[in-house]
Each structure stands twice: as structure tokens, then as C-alpha cells.
């Protein structure tokens, strides 16, 4: 893990390389995180790759409801020679959830970006195959958003059969 000083140095290098890309840094419980502007994510990850973080371990989606901007994407990077990890975060609003795709540079992000799109509705521009991956293709909504209803469908028991949905008629 880069310590707090190392994280600030890393963030300074990234900010010098792509001006305006670094919005914030956070060092929490021994883990460093860099928050970047969504438009600069591709350049940031490529710069981190040159700095030694050669493996993109995972891509996550987050819903920060009720904070704005609501949706977040986390990229976990690993330096396999120094055993270093760093998290790159970005946040986009639900109104325009567009993020440049990193799939052309990191092929492992292909399915993970599709899953983030499926569950949170973040659209990755430039992704070669931006479809749902888990839910049916005609499914409406993004079920991992925090304002998505948990269940909603009443269970058919004998006692409420008459009031339940009469779908079989």
C-alpha cells in the first residue's frame, strides 16, 4: 500500500500529467484512493499502468444515494512487483451517467463494466458491447440502485390467492 505521503506524490504526478484530473485523495486504514474527473479516467489509468500498477483487479459500481453526484465507479489497481494497491474512484450524476470505457486498454474490464451498467445504469462510452450481462435483456431499471424496490411482488398463498394478481386468467 502506498502510505499517505506516497499517495500524495502519486496524485501530484497524475495531476501534472493530466491537468484537472485529480479531484481528491483519501488514505483510509492503510488504503489509498484517488478521486478523478470522469472524463480523464482513461489517461489516469494508463499513467498508473506506467507507474507500475499493471493489473486492473476489479471494477465496481456504487450508489451514494442521497449524496450527489449519486453514482460511482471504483477501479482497483495492483502493482504485482511491489505488491501495492491503489483505488481510483469517479462519480457521475444519474442524469448523465456517462464514463469513458477502459475496455480497449484493459480487456478484463469488459464484463465488469457491463455488470456495472446492468446493476447501476452507468453507461461506458466506447465499450465494444454495452449490453446487460446478468438481468434479462428486456428488464426495466437497474436493480442495485438504492431507490430500487427490494421485492415488491406479493407472494401467492392460499389465503390471498383471490386478491393476488390473476395472471393465469
Amino acid at each position, binding site marked *: 500500500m502506498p502510505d499517505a505521503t506516497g499517495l500524495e506524490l502519486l496524485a501530484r504526478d497524475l495531476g501534472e500529467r493530466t491537468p484537472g484530473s485529480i479531484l481528491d485523495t483519501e488514505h483510509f486504514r492503510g488504503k489509498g484512493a484517488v478521486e478523478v474527473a470522469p472524463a480523464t479516467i482513461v489517461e489516469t489509468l494508463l499513467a498508473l499502468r506506467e507507474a507500475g500498477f499493471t493489473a486492473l483487479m476489479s471494477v465496481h459500481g456504487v450508489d451514494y444515494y442521497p449524496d450527489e453526484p449519486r453514482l460511482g465507479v471504483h477501479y482497483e489497481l495492483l502493482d504485482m512487483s511491489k505488491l501495492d494497491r491503489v483505488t481510483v474512484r469517479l462519480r457521475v450524476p444519474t442524469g448523465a451517467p456517462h464514463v469513458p470505457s477502459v475496455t480497449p486498454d484493459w480487456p478484463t474490464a469488459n464484463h465488469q463494466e457491463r455488470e456495472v451498467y446492468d446493476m447501476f445504469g452507468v453507461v461506458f462510452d466506447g465499450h465494444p458491447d454495452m449490453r446487460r450481462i*446478468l*438481468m*434479462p435483456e428486456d*428488464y426495466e431499471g437497474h*436493480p442495485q440502485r438504492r431507490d*430500487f*424496490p*427490494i*421485492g415488491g*411482488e406479493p*407472494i*401467492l*398463498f392460499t389465503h390471498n390467492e383471490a386478491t393476488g394478481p390473476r*395472471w*393465469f*386468467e
Partner: protein
Amino acid sequence: MEVVRQKIETPEDFRARQLRARDMLRGDLEGQDLEQYVQERVLTTTLDKAVDWARGNSLFPLTFGLACCAIEMMSIVGARLDIARFGFEAFRASPRQADLMILSGRVSIKMAPVVRRVYDQMLEPKFAIAMGACSSSMGVFNNYAIVPADKFMPVDVHVPGCPPRPEALMHGIIKLRAMVQEDPSMGWRRRYGGVGTEEVVPTAGEHATGENVFTGAGTEASDA
């Protein structure tokens, strides 16, 4: 031809049938020997009852595991519980040869059309057991991805539990056997559209059409 079920009202009625059977055996045995043989060996019944009795004792389950409940389902064919004792031992790998579908686990909304299609391909008479909390009422997975079995297919027996112990599934199968042997009509199943065997025939059009080989009526291909 309509099969009319004859009721045996009184012991005298039953006795009359025994006497008729005794007449048929006359010649091979005589006297007291014949009387004893008939009373011990011959039992008269209706064809319906005999067929239901045989049917209930030879249900072949479908080899179809969905989730963790499938582990419990597998164990009932093992040596400890051994449903071969009741004639259920042959798990068939094809819906054409199976009589009983055990929904062993949670059914996701993507899996539901597949389950319904496999169920539609089974030949009559066919039965279904919803095993475990998930397939009956979504259980701990009560969320956006899971659908209870009652919503898309007729279920004869629900076995509660998470997962049910093999003994519980055994009890469910025995209950189903009793139902098959005593009340085979299952008229309630019609309202689910679950009667008959449906084969999905690929056509040139956009939608495949299904043909119900039981009623002969063509239906829209059931993707739900």
C-alpha cells in the same frame, strides 16, 4: 368411451364379486380349497384405481437441480434414505421420460422460462414439487432476481425448509404419492394452463409457435 367408476357400497357387494371370481376359477380348484384361494388371493378393483396405484408407485423424477436444495435432493437417492424403496429411484435425464419435476432451489427470472419450457415438454401425467423456501416464496432471496414457482407453473406439493432435510422431501414425495393414488383428477391445474405437453416448433416467423399435443390447440410460444 367414458369410464364409469363403480362404488362398492356394502360388504355384501364385495362378497358378490368374490363369488363371481370363484365361478371363473371353478374347475382348477374345488370346494373348500377354492373358497380359501379366492378369499386370500383375489382382490377386485377398478381399472382406474389400479392405474393410479401403479402410477403413484413409479414416479420418475427429472434430473434437474437448481441450487443448494439439489444437494439434499441427491441425498434421497443415496443408501440412507433410498427412495428406490418407493419406486422413485430412476432420475431421468430427459423431460420426455420423467413424471415429476422437483424445483430444488431458487428460480431466477432468467431461469423461469427455461423451467416452464422443460415442464411443458414433460408428458402427462406430470407433477411438480417446489422444494425449499426459495421456490415457494423466494425465501432469503426475496429480491429483484427471484420469482416464486407459483407464478409461472402449477405446483402440486410445496416442501418448506431452507433447505428441507431429505426426510422432509421424502415426506413431500409420499404426500404426492397419496395424492396421485387418491385424487388423480387435479382439475385445478387447468387454470394455470398447465395441462398437456407442449412442443415448441421452430417456424420461419419471428415467434416460434407451440403446439399442445394434449389438446391439439396451437398456442403462442410460452416464453414466460
